[in-house]
Structures are given as structure tokens and as C-alpha cells.
């Protein structure tokens, strides 16, 4: 199986790799994992006072497609509000990176990482409990 040019680009030059300080203001973390391949993904977002994601970082242990998917979403979520970030769908990620069917779960992982990070932010800031419950239920 060969990787698409875009996957290779993100894999070779991953954007926004790293970790924010745990105590940094406005930082929330989403951790997800895919049993299918044993990949683990950590996505952190830094949200400003206006509720806009101003920065994002990731750390992913997985295949090229998983790394590319997480690298891509760190770029996509920047400048978005939390609710806008939640509209990012795995199908968009898969399409952008031209992922083959066997690698679709990598894009699912990245979408779920965004949801988990947003849920973590909302939990820390005590907002919209209802929506959090819904997010958790979707994954069950």
C-alpha cells in the first residue's frame, strides 16, 4: 500500500507536534485510541477567552496515516470556535489525505480526538453538560 503525497508530507513534516504545559490557561486534552491497530493519539487545544482555538498540539503513536490525520486536524482546528471544531468530520480528513479504506479508522481517531479535547475543555469550564453526555454516548 502506498501513501498519498499529502500523507507523506504530514508524516515527514508533522505540524504542531508536542505538548502544552498542563497548567497553561485554556488548555484541554483529548486522548483516544483505536483497538484495531493499537494506535494512541493525544490532541491538545489552547482556547482563548473568546472561545476560539488559538493553538493546537498533538502526539500520536501510530502509522503514517494516524500521524498525518492528527497533524492535519491541528491545522484545521486553529482559528475555529469549539462548536466549529466539532463539525470536522472524519470523512473530510480521509478525503483530504486520500486515505484508503483500511486507514479510515485513523481519520475516525482524529475526529474523536477533537471531540474528546472539546469535551475536556467544556468539562473543565463547567459548560454545556448536556452536550458532553451526548458526545460520550456517541462513542459507546
Amino acid at each position: 500500500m502506498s501513501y498519498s503525497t499529502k500523507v507523506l508530507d504530514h508524516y515527514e513534516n508533522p505540524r504542531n507536534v508536542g505538548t502544552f504545559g498542563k497548567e497553561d490557561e485554556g488548555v484541554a486534552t483529548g486522548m483516544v485510541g483505536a483497538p484495531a491497530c493499537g494506535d494512541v493519539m493525544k490532541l491538545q487545544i489552547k482556547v482563548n477567552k473568546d472561545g476560539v482555538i488559538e493553538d493546537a498540539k498533538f502526539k500520536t503513536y501510530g502509522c503514517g496515516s494516524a500521524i498525518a490525520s492528527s497533524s492535519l486536524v491541528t491545522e484545521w482546528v486553529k482559528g475555529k470556535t469549539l462548536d466549529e471544531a466539532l463539525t470536522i468530520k472524519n470523512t473530510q480528513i480521509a478525503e483530504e489525505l486520500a486515505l484508503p479504506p483500511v486507514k479510515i479508522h485513523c481519520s475516525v481517531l482524529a475526529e474523536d480526538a477533537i471531540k474528546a479535547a472539546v469535551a475536556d475543555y467544556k468539562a473543565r469550564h463547567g459548560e454545556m453538560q448536556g452536550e458532553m453526555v451526548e458526545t460520550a454516548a456517541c462513542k459507546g
Partner: protein
Amino acid sequence: MNFDFSKNHFELLGITPAYQIDLIRLEQTYRDIQSQVHPDKFAHLNDAERRLSMQWSTQANEAYQTLRHPLNRARYLLHLNGFELHEETNTAMSPAFLMQQMEWREAIGEARAAKDTSELEHLSSKLRADVQAQQQQLAGLLDSDKDFEKAAQVVRELKFMEKLREEINYALEALEA
């Protein structure tokens, strides 16, 4: 030969559905079936009969491959009880478990970068102990407690641990090369 294609893997191989099974008996039954449906024995049969026995042989092979591997067996048992793992789409593992996975991956990566074979071997034996403990827990959940929900979670965790084992082996192979 009586072909009943509606049999599940356990029935086909004459094993009581459980996680803890008699592997010697499993292999025995499998070999018996394969010897009965071996293509050489059917030279005198017509095409339809030959095709049936080939299908039967394929089915027995699939049953055997599924049941002899602990994780595949657990996944199949869960499936029979109406529980699917959704390995591709269920990404909601406990944060503590995922954090641990990250730490394992980091430790393996560091040991590999430092070419520290003894550390990798230490991690490998630690992982083996962890996996054994998990498998024991799984046996209790599947065979005694019948807590399939919890068992599915343990199987998902074991999938990650299988990946760790692969990573450690790759690292060791890379250092030996």
C-alpha cells in the same frame, strides 16, 4: 460425511463455547475433520460432492484459526453473545489506560533510541506479565461472570498490548540487525 454449514465454530469442532478450552482436543478434532475431507479421498466423488467437502474443509480451517488464538477466540465468543468490539470506530478507552499506553510507547522509543537492549527486554517481560494478568481476568469475565461488556473492554485493551509487543519486537530486531 454430514455437512452442516449452520454450525458455529465451537460446534463444528466439538468444543463447549468458552474462553478456556482444551487446545489439544481442538487440534485433534480439527485434524480428524481435515483427514476426512482431504481432497485425495474424494477422487471418486462427483464435482458437487467435492465442492462441498472443500467448503467444509475451509470452514473447519477458519474455525480452527479463530479458536486457537486467545484474542480471536474471545472476540468470537463475544460475537456469539451479541457483543461486538467495534475496533475500528470505538476510540473511547479510559484516559488512564491511554496515558499508560503513551508512557509505554515513550519508554520503548527511548530504549530503542538509546540502543538499550536490556531495557527493552525488561519492558518485554513486564508486558508479558501484564498480558497474563489481563488474560486471567478475561477468563473470569467470559467463563464465570459472563460480564461481556467488561470482557469486551479487556479485549480492546489487550489489542493495544499486542501492539506494544510488536513494537518491542521490532525495536529488538532493529538493534540486533
